[in-house]
């Protein structure tokens, strides 16, 4: 009998999977927003706050503002455990929309997934959004019409890091002969900035050292012993996950002062410094997504979402945490892009092609930032068909032992210097894939 039950279970599982709706196209007044998420596994600590921020903002739009110009967002989550393979499956499941509500964009929520989907997105005409991540050369929208490494691509991250170091040293001419060590997570993400740093090292004459930390990076003595031997002036820390607090602690053990370590975006959240305890005091990090709950949008959310019990946050103390704010910012970028698209196509749910047009014409200036309550939290951003990044700046925040304190205004990356690198790579991609780059001005 038990065997029968088990068989029945198996049959039921097959049957339920069969019921997945490759949905019919009815007319719908809703915009479908599928989110591949990770609330389980090694990356869940960042994920849970991130999705809380995203969901809270979407709820705010739906319930307080009545949708994006009246179009409600129909949000659905899919667990992926940050596996690109499962994200691909989710993408295939959702790309045709749901119950007639179309998909205008797909957050990949991870660089590997962005890579895996880049051709499918182009073929299906679904914009893939991966702020502060993604495939760097897809910044060139003439070759990659449907990929958006929005806001702050990896080359810009390297550039802002070096610019800030120059600022601290008192000018770019002071960089000459300085030793800058990059300690990086030994993965595609970690290595992505190498070309940019190399170029900048040539330009400014600093000595460039690259030291890899193998995943997951819970033991790093050999690496930091090497760093100590080099006696660096600055350390650029490009780790992720558990390798960040371990790096900060190990650095302290080898006598490298925390205030001479600059962390990258993905090494600059509370989860990265709290486990390191006192060792992290003075540590600085790039913040395209600054931490803090004192921005205008937080007041609005506190009133309408947090205090009314509608927030996805389990623990209110994380309101305004870096990852929560990442979620907010990504959500507002999507909403503003929808508005841009609606301005052209009418106040209705958009499909992927219209969504792309929206993103390519996304402009948020200071005035708009103040209107939507993101001034100071989000940089001004302007995308064009040939520039899918559109921002390229970050503030610097410093950990004071309790919280992140913003120590600079927006520092702009030297995007002109790095653009040729991006174009060389995108041209190579275009050649390999027989893509004729579209003319950036042809369609408007």
């Amino acid at each position: 009998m038990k065997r029968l039950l088990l068989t029945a279970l198996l049959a039921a599982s097959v049957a339920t999977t069969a019921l997945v709706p490759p949905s019919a196209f009815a007319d719908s007044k809703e915009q479908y927003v599928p989110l591949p998420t990770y609330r389980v596994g090694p990356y869940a600590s960042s994920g849970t706050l991130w999705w809380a921020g995203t969901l809270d903002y979407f709820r705010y739009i739906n319930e307080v503002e009545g949708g994006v110009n009246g179009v409600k967002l129909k949000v659905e989550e899919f667990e992926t455990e940050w596996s690109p393979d499962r994200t691909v499956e989710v993408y295939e499941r959702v790309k045709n929309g749901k119950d007639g509500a179309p998909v205008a964009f797909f957050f990949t929520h991870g660089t590997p997934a962005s890579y895996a989907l880049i051709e499918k997105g182009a073929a299906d005409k679904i914009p893939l959004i991966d702020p502060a991540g993604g495939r760097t050369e897809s910044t060139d929208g003439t070759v990659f019409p449907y990929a958006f490494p929005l806001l702050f691509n990896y080359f810009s991250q390297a550039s802002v890091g070096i610019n800030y170091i120059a600022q601290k040293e008192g000018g770019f001419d002071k960089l000459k002969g300085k030793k800058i060590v990059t300690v990086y997570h030994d993965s595609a993400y970690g290595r992505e900035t190498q070309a940019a740093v190399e170029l900048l090292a040539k330009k400014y004459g600093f000595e460039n050292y690259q030291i890899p930390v193998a995943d997951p990076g819970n033991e790093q003595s050999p690496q930091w012993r090497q760093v100590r031997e080099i006696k660096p002036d600055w350390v650029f820390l490009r780790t992720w996950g558990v390798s960040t607090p371990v790096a900060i602690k190990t650095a302290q053990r080898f006598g490298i002062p925390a205030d001479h370590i600059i962390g990258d975006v993905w090494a600059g959240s509370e989860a990265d410094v709290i486990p390191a305890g006192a060792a992290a005091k003075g540590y600085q990090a790039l913040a395209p997504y600054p931490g803090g709950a004192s921005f205008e949008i937080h007041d609005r959310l506190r009133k309408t979402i947090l205090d009314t019990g509608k927030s996805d946050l389990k623990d209110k103390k994380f309101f305004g945490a870096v990852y929560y704010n990442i979620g907010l910012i990504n959500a507002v970028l999507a909403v503003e892009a929808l508005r841009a698209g609606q301005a052209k196509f009418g106040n209705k749910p958009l499909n992927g092609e219209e969504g792309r047009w929206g993103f390519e014409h996304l402009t948020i200036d200071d005035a708009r930032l103040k209107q939507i309550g993101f001034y100071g939290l989000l940089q001004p951003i302007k995308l064009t068909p040939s520039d899918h990044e559109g921002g390229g700046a970050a503030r610097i925040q410093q950990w004071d032992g309790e919280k992140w304190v913003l120590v600079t205004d927006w520092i702009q990356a030297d995007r002109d210097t790095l653009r040729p690198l991006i174009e060389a790579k995108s041209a190579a991609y275009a050649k390999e894939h027989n893509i004729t780059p579209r003319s950036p001005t042809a369609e408007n």
Partner: protein
Amino acid sequence: MNLFLETLIGGLLAGTMYSLVAIGFVLIYKASGVFNFAQGSILLFAALTFVTLLEKGLPFVAALAVTIAILILGAIVIERTVLRPLANRSPMTLFMATLGLSYVVEGAAQGIMGAQVHALDLGIEDVPIFLGDVLISQFDLVAATTAVALALILALLFNNTRIGISLRAVADDTRAALSVGINLNRIWQIVWAVAGIVGLVAGMLWGARQGIQFSLSLVVLKALPVLIIGGFTSIGGAIAGGLIVGAAENLAETYVGPYIGGGITPWFPYFLAIAFLYIRPAGLFGERALERV
């Protein structure tokens, strides 16, 4: 030369952190022949429970006691629901069951206690001590002392208590042990509970270093080479294996790594382990199986 000494000493000390994790495997394998892959999740679960209780305001000792109680309860549940129904199945089936178990434990740990990263301050200063020019980590010294102390305590328990002696009897010859009236199920419960407590100690030390978070469960990947170098059945072997792996991996990363691109620590210990195994197929201190046709 200083760099060499420093790397060597640092590596030896760091290696004992791996030993701590490996001891948990050895205990269970010795008593029940189970290669318990869930040890990493149990370590995570234990540390997470402890720190959650601590953050709820319990004093250190109380949190420790409650965590240990939960671990003992967990061991009993695991024995009843997983081990007993699977008794006498092939070692591979049991191994797979522990993989399934690791999903359950991880799901429970993150589901109940959340996914957030917790800091754990054990009050150990992590500042460098200088011995001449050689830098030594104070934290590593404490960890090494703990590992050795733990191994000694376990050895004493095995040799001088009734439970320990029954446990060795079970390990030596299960049938003979059964025939003299040793309660096998009880022994398994005890061993799984002790392995859980060892996991708690390891989890606390690793957690103090890297924060208590999901990736604690990944330290098992560091402990496995230690385990096979030292042998699945020897606690002393786990300590020796840890020292060997720690020293070798630090020296290799420092002196060989730069020539081949670095980041070789994930696989280097495994190659080392294969080399050791090729000479001693059951590890340095493991027991060689007699094969009868």
